[in-house]
């Protein structure tokens, strides 16, 4: 399939989703809300996918950037700099996390071992949560900040912005991967020493991917802030904002463009269903699902045998794989 067809398909799918509010009443249908959340998770999953799938770095700090993006809106609104659905504010809510990602990313990513990156990003989320709790009047402390919920008019803008974010994140990830930069990132992922020998500035690309991921996560945070109107450190710096996207990515297939999309929609649906069908014990179910998925489907849905055979004609392996046993990572 040619690039033009691909772009055409993307436009078609986007148009289909854009048409959903024509069929469903956005104020009455739960599915509009469901898709709004699913789109947010697609964007978050792509953000994580970009970092993990293409550079082989496990970030456990998506919630740090998500929460920071939300607080940019909340604080900006409180100080009357940013308004409701303010484009400038939303760009800021992506940029500030991206800047933080660069500042934190340079020292953390310059270490050869990826583990420090995972630990450091997890710590970053916790630090931000605590700092915002201790932030006094500016951050509202542990009570968080409340925005004037009377600004809400309709679910539609949320739906379309979330759709835009999902498409944006997917397109950005796709473009980055297809570009020469993408090849550099893959080289980094597959063999760091070889990439270094070939004169690729590893750090620059890793930090770039990390910052772009943070930008997208921050945008998602700002949208969620506009939706909830109550920005609370415990919620917005909650680990779930990192763990769910990771799970979605892995379930869908890390390091592929469609994986996170499928994973996000599928899991959001599963979690919803389990809550309806198993109200008392659904968190057990979620935990079990994670474990079972990883054991029996570690490469994700997009790399399922039948899926691949049907569409590609042969089986491939997950890109971040077997490193431990071939010793390449050491």
């Amino acid at each position, binding site marked *: 399939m040619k690039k033009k067809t691909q772009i055409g398909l993307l436009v078609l799918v986007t148009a289909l989703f854009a048409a959903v509010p024509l069929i469903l009443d956005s104020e009455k249908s739960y599915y509009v809300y469901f898709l709004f959340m699913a789109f947010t998770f697609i964007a978050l999953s792509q953000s994580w996918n970009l970092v993990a799938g293409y550079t082989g770095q496990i970030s456990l700090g998506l919630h740090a950037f998500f929460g920071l993006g939300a607080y940019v809106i909340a604080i900006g609104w409180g100080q009357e700099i940013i308004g409701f659905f303010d484009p400038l504010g939303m760009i800021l809510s992506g940029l500030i996390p991206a800047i933080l990602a660069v500042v934190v990313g340079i020292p953390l990513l310059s270490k050869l071992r990826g583990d420090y990156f995972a630990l450091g990003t997890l710590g970053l989320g916790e630090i931000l949560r605590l700092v915002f709790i201790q932030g006094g009047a500016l951050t509202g402390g542990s009570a968080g900040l409340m925005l004037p919920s009377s600004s809400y008019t309709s679910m539609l803008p949320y739906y379309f912005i979330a759709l835009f974010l999902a498409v944006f994140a997917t397109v950005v990830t796709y473009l980055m991967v297809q570009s020469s930069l993408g090849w550099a990132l893959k080289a980094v992922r*597959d063999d760091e020493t070889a990439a270094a020998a070939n004169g690729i500035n590893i750090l620059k690309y890793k930090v770039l991917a990390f910052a772009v991921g943070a930008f997208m996560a921050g945008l998602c945070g700002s949208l969620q802030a506009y939706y909830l109107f109550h920005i609370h450190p415990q919620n917005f710096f909650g680990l779930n904002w990192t763990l769910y996207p990771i799970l979605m990515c892995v379930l869908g297939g890390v390091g592929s463009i469609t994986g996170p999309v499928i994973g996000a929609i599928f899991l959001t649906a599963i979690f919803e269903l389990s809550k309806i069908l198993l109200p008392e014990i659904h968190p057990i179910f979620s935990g079990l699902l994670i474990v079972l998925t990883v054991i029996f489907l570690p490469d994700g849905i997009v790399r399922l045998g039948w899926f691949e055979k049907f569409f590609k004609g042969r089986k*491939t*392996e997950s*890109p971040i794989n077997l490193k431990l*046993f*071939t*010793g390449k990572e050491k």
Partner: protein
Amino acid sequence: MANPLLRVSDLNVFYGDAQALWDIGFYVDEGAVYSIIGSNGAGKSTVLRALSGLVRPASGRVEFLGSRVEGKGADVMVDLGISLVPEGRGLFTSLTVLENLELGAFTKRARPKRAKTLEWVNELFPIIEARKDQQAGKMSGGEQQMVAIGRALMSRPKLLMLDEPSLGLAPLIVKTVFEIIRTLNEQKVTILLVEQNIHQALKIADRALVLKTGRTTMTGKGDELLADPEIQKAYMGTLRKGT
């Protein structure tokens, strides 16, 4: 002719989407020294990694002592008697020399004979015994290579595979290393050697194989290949009989 110790046929290896080895085939007789030579990136190490079980071949046969062993894990291969001294030696640098050697005899087959094997290794490498309580990482490159070979011998291998044993060593040490290989061979250890130091590798080898970008370009007796004008031209250039 009796069955060779190791017979490899039609071996294909992939790294992800990229094929690294194409239809490699050769055999190593018991008690022989077999060399695989070729330039950087020709796939020499990959052959050893596939034989040691670190890399799973996509297709092909590996027969060792008459039975098929391809696809088995590295830990199983050691127990069967194939031992690899990896490129860069792969010592446990934070462990002592003695601990490294002890772990060399980790397999079920080698463990009961550990004390006896250790005596043998100490005899081969007197320097090891003198420094047995030192951290392996703190030794010089040459000494580390001795420990690495010693550790591999601790598993009582029937086939010892050496990946670039001379890499990064001073010329004098390189000479010692090859002397050791010769000694080992005299003590009936079959050796599969991968080397960039082509002159030395061919001189010591009974038979050898030349690899180029993952494909076999030539096989033959060591001295024949050494005399081959193409080899001379391609790999030794102006060095002639250097080192």
